[in-house]
């Protein structure tokens, strides 16, 4: 087990494109860190640079105290689970798991013992003598993990290990991975494009975009205090509503009306009128008719038409149409949508996704009084995309209805 330290790690291809740009990342011993981002953001490349399958063009990569920039993968003592498992098809499950030990010339008795131990942990004992071709997807996934845990490496590296499984198995294996990582306490770096995996598995999550680390933080901080528009839009499902707005002092003008922001939410040095992008998560809207009196004072209400309702049982999603003026802010939002692979309706008409309590009686096509929690409005600079909202310190805030807290 060891810490992994990256300083200015860069991947530059011969044609000059940079897949990974000056990444600084400290992964503590025993920590579970997730690299997440849309496809093409460089997360897999970064992982492959840690393991040594990709050269490091610039910067320093340390595992423990040792600089490993020029070390071959075999000398880095890391174990990796590939997206497609990469099992050796000509070997039985037993020999697949034993492979790293055989290469390391571990005595036979020791190999048998360790393989059987790993098989027990992974519930593979019955399948030890079968070939990978005769296993189900979940079992193959376990074999790939067996090959990793059997050696007691310095760190586990996972490259989108669950993306080939069906939804049900994915949830099951996700728990399994968390359990195994906790059992062995091994430093783990896990690449995924799935934010649910990122949020549920990681001690800390690093969000990447175009090879640049946007924010490294605990899942909760990423959710509550996104550092910029990209993280705000990427984390959370359904994603945060991003609306063009104008800030005057503490008054924020939004497409559906003006809201008064509490002092804690007003950017420092505010005052002058400025363009902003406001971010409000779906759960910070509510059907005004069911908001308690206590909360009512913390927000504003506005009337809106409800275009579509998706009833989920425990909650419902209401789609509220609105018009934007377009302009530079609109273009910024469109660019972000393209980046995030979101189906943002381009042009002047857009919609807000609001999450209401299942008790809400709003009807499709009708009008509704909608309450918005002003304590949870995020403001972003439309030019840089950086957050303008003062960072929230844990515990300083009241519990808001629907807010994700535990």
């Amino acid at each position, binding site marked *: 087990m060891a810490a992994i330290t990256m300083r200015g790690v860069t991947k530059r291809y011969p044609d000059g494109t940079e897949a990974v740009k000056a990444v600084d990342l400290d992964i503590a011993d025993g920590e579970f860190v997730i690299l997440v981002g849309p496809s093409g953001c460089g997360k897999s490349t970064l992982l492959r640079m840690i393991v040594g399958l990709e050269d490091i063009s610039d910067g320093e990569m340390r595992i423990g105290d040792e600089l490993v920039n020029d070390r071959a*993968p075999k000398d880095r003592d890391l174990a990796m689970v590939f997206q*497609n498992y990469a*099992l*050796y098809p*000509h070997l039985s499950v037993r020999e697949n798991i034993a492979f790293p030990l055989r*290469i390391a010339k571990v005595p036979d008795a020791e190999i048998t013992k360790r393989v059987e131990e790993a098989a027990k942990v992974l519930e593979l004992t019955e399948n030890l003598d079968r070939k*990978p*071709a005769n*296993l189900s997807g979940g079992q193959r996934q376990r074999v790939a993990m067996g090959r990793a845990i059997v050696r007691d490496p310095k760190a586990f590296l996972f490259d989108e290990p669950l993306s080939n499984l069906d939804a049900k198995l994915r949830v099951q294996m996700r728990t399994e991975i968390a359990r195994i990582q906790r059992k062995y306490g091994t430093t783990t770096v896990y690449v995924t494009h799935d934010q649910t995996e990122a949020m549920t598995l990681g001690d800390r999550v690093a969000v990447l975009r175009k090879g640049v680390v946007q924010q490294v933080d605990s899942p909760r901080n990423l959710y509550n205090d996104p550092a910029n528009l990209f993280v705000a839009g990427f984390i959370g499902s359904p994603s945060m509503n991003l609306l063009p707005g104008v800030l005057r002092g503490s008054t924020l003008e939004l497409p559906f009306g003006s809201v008064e922001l509490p002092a804690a939410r007003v950017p420092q040095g505010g005052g002058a009128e400025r363009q902003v992008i406001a971010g409000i998560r779906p759960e910070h809207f509510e059907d005004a008719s069911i908001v308690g009196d206590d909360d009512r004072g913390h927000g504003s209400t506005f009337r809106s038409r409800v275009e579509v309702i998706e009833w989920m049982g425990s909650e419902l999603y209401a789609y509220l149409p609105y018009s934007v003026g377009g302009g530079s802010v609109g273009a910024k939002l469109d660019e972000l949508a393209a980046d995030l692979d979101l189906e943002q309706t381009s042009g002047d008409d857009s919609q807000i996704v609001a999450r209401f309590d299942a008790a809400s009686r709003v009807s499709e096509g009708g009008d509704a009084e909608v309450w918005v929690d002003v304590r949870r409005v995020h403001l972003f600079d439309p030019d840089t995309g950086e957050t303008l909202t003062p960072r929230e310190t844990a515990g300083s805030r009241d519990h808001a209805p629907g807010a994700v807290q535990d």
Partner: protein
Amino acid sequence: MTTTAIGGEQVGADAQAAHSTWAPTRRRHREAGRGPAWTIGALAIMAYALFPVAWIASLSLKGEGDIADGKLIPTKPTLDNYRTLFDSGEFVRPLINSIGISLITTVLAVVIASFAAYAIARLDFPGKSLLLTGALAIAMFPPVSIIGPLFNIWRSTGLYDTWPGLILPFLTFALPLAIWTLAAFFREIPFDLEQAAQVDGATPFQAFRKVILPLALPGVFTSAIIVFIFCWNDFLFSISLTSTDEARTVPAATAFFTASSNFINPTGQIAAAAIIVTVPIIIMVLVFQRRIVAGLTAGAVKG
């Protein structure tokens, strides 16, 4: 040959069926398509391919008297031709030459070609396409055009009428074949497997020997068969670059067969020799065919 090929195809289909749930349906569809037309076609091709073989077999079993009777089934089957063949001493030494030279060439070609093909499949190096084109050009080169110069060079270097004298030109033409075949097989093996082996602590050579080579075995056997048959069937080099039984192979030696009298053609013995040289090829294909199982890499990666 035709029947064994059908068997091989079904092995492949089974491996697929084990893999995807809808494969069995697809297979049934395909078999339903094999109506009477398919059967008649297959029989016609088999007859076309096997009739000459049957005729040669029949000739080899006929005595000198009824060799020209034009009947497919010999009236008085006899093994005299085979006996004469082995007693005469004109055949045994060439047979040894054929086996030895072909086997040595095959082993050398497959070993050298597997390293070359692996590099070609995995690495990007300057001149790679030039190398491949060059190899292809050599394979396409008409051998007869180099026979003259080769004859002179071999005589002055002492390679004339020796085993290495045949192995060298055989290798020259067999290597490109083997490299192309093997490179195609190596390309099929997922690169991830090799990277997984490296992460698991293997050196590049260990990864090659323990992971890639076992998976490329069908390809190795396929190219071995191709090379072996190429050497075994060669007539041109053997007839031109040998003068005695020292290195002369069977196809060339057959042309020098003498019958019991100068006025009779040794037809029966030539037929017997043809049958004997066909047997190793059939055995080889049958033995290796079982190794050439489709879908050996199944289960390596989710596909």
